């Protein structure tokens, strides 16, 4: 079936002399037009603008234009104490706020050599993985919206709501949690949360099967994603793409394994890898990741040690001079915080390396010669969060 479609898909014989290559210029020199996709466009997931040079529906060049919700978090970091910057981190990528806070908290802890009690680390893992599932659910729904399927997002939100309720019961917020603090956590988990999480893990298994039957196995979805939007492993490497994007290109890169942070080294989980490097591979990576996250949560719940959730933290936090990095596997890939301290209470420099930024930067190269719906499907499979790109 795939081969069938290829006969008029990009790069095939029916399109010989087609619009994408240099021969197109001789063929129809003045027949291109510029399509300004965004900054307000249903598929732009926020305020991303893509300047597309089109030849009919074929894309000759797609240049993302970003910066529409740039908030200069890095400058804000230089103007407030370490602790005061903490709420900002949840707002960079609001869909995986836990991971982002984790990275910043981790960087400061690493620089200040703050010990974090094991219980706190376990709870961080549980909440991080819950957050990853909820983030992937939003992506799943939004991708299906991009592809014109309206119903899955509501099913996903039904399940995501359960996660948000759990996290709200835990830390009082549903999106910008600000739950991790230097040296530990804002507060301890209670039985409601632990039992609720166990129930959720049970609940999600049949739901994931339902997702698979409804969407993953669906022939229409498979046709829209399979063999489309190929991103080679080399392209990922050259552009620094991480997360499900690189794992969908057959490279098992996961910060949780490459630079084990927190207590991730104590859990058994697989890194889903699909070598097909098409949009479907990235899709399947995320779907499998949800299962793996559930596995990690289950193990962490079983191993959860007793003890305090807050370590010893100096009242006035001054970091020793020098720079420190801390990377986490956020829902969209590698998120790294690089902090530079000059020994004062205020950061000298906070660099936020966000995954979506690098993942989007390869879009221009990867989308060449695709047709518009495929390019948008591919954009959906990159799982972009625009505030994460613009910071």
């Amino acid at each position: 079936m795939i081969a069938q479609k290829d006969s008029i898909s990009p790069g095939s014989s029916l399109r010989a002399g087609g619009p994408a290559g240099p021969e197109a210029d001789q063929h129809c020199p003045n027949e291109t037009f510029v399509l300004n996709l965004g900054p307000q466009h249903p598929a732009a997931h926020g305020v991303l603008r893509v300047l597309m040079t089109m030849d009919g529906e074929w894309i000759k060049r797609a240049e993302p234009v970003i910066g529409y919700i740039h908030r200069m978090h890095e400058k804000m970091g230089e103007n407030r104490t370490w602790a005061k910057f903490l709420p900002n981190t949840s707002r960079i990528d609001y869909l995986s706020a836990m991971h982002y806070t984790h990275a910043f908290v981790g960087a400061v802890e690493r620089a200040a050599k703050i010990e974090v009690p094991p219980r706190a680390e376990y709870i961080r893992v549980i909440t991080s993985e819950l957050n990853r599932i909820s983030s992937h659910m939003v992506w799943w729904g939004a991708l299906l919206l991009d592809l014109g399927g309206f119903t899955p997002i509501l099913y996903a939100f039904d399940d995501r709501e359960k996660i948000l309720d759990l996290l709200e019961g835990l830390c009082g917020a549903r999106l910008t949690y600000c739950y991790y603090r230097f040296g530990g956590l804002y507060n301890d988990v209670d039985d409601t949360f632990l039992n609720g999480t166990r129930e959720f893990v049970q609940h999600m298994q049949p739901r994931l099967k339902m997702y698979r039957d409804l969407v993953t196995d669906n022939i229409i979805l498979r046709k829209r994603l399979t063999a489309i939007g190929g991103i080679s492993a080399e392209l990922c490497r050259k552009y620094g793409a991480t997360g499900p994007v690189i794992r969908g290109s057959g490279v098992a890169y996961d910060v949780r394994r490459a630079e084990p942070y927190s207590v991730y080294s104590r859990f058994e989980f697989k890194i889903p890898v699909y070598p097909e490097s098409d949009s479907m591979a990235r899709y399947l990576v995320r779907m499998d990741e949800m299962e793996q996250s559930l596995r990690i949560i289950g193990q962490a719940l079983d191993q959860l040690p007793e003890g305090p959730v807050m370590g010893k933290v100096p009242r006035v936090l001054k970091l020793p001079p020098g720079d420190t990095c801390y990377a986490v596997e956020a829902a969209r890939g590698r998120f790294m915080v690089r902090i530079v301290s000059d020994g004062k209470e205020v950061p000298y420099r906070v660099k936020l390396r966000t995954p979506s930024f690098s993942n989007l930067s390869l879009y221009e190269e990867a989308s060449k010669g695709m047709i518009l719906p495929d390019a948008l499907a591919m954009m959906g499979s990159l799982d972009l969060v625009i505030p994460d790109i613009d910071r």
Partner: protein
Amino acid sequence: MSFLTLEPIRLLLYLVGVCAFVGANAAYLVLAERKGAGRIQRRPGPNEAGYAGLLQPVADGIKLLAKQIMVPPGTDALLFRAAPLMVMAPSLMCLAVIPFGANLVARDLNIGLLLVFSFGSINVMALMLGGWASRNKFAIISSARVVSQNVAYEIPMLLVVITMLMVTGTMNLNEIIHQQAGWFWNWNVFKVWVNPLMPVTFVIFFICMLAETNRAPFDMAEAESELVAGAFTEYGGMGFGVFFMAEYANIVVGCCLATILFLGGWQSPFGALSGVLGPLWFLLKMYALIFTVIWIRWTFPRTQFYSLLNLSWKILIPLSLFTLVLTGVMIKII
């Protein structure tokens, strides 16, 4: 009673009736669609305007009427304004030959089927003109898509219809229904002794109908996550509203046709009770099909553009050609 037999008065009554039928259907199918979507997505759907949201179409209508119809500068204003009407009018025309009951038909034409298909094709042109006249890149892409999509699907649809013509031997829609009298296994869709692939033929017809009316999963023309609103991007107010209503009117026509050709029209499934209750059976079957259309829309993602064309050229056309030949052979043998 005698004045009812006067042809002009009868036609006038039917005109009003058809307009009212289409208007009410379009308005309330929108509500049904939203309610159905809500059900499928496990939410109530619109339920604030009136009891259980029954006044929602009225509210929508008022909203659309109150909005200005902007004609974008530099467009062909005449075409831009004409396009919505050109979409709407043919669907109304088609309903003139649709028999809702044994005698409930505005014009019992001998070539009813031909008329429906001739008028059905105008709608493509109207969408294309609307998109072209909008002078919007999204709309132009959309109109190009509409044309290729409709051309691709017209063929298998007509092949199926030719098959049905061979089976029925007439273009008179009422006559086709009369032939399907008796129990439900006499309906064309179950006539496997004429053609073992009859149910498949029905599915082909249904898929083509979806594609012809630009319904999800074949809504290439609107494709709101790619083309904003496709050909309707620049339309506002009632201009958009008429396009919207025409979409539902087209669905009604398509489902009517499917009912007539395959599901026995106003015939009851049990061989009896089809006289007085005829229109009821007809509407029942038609709305069941419309429900399926809605159900499909809220289940599947949109197809890819070239798999849409591939589906037509590589699967549906060969398959319908095959059924055509098969039917011919079977008829010859029988």
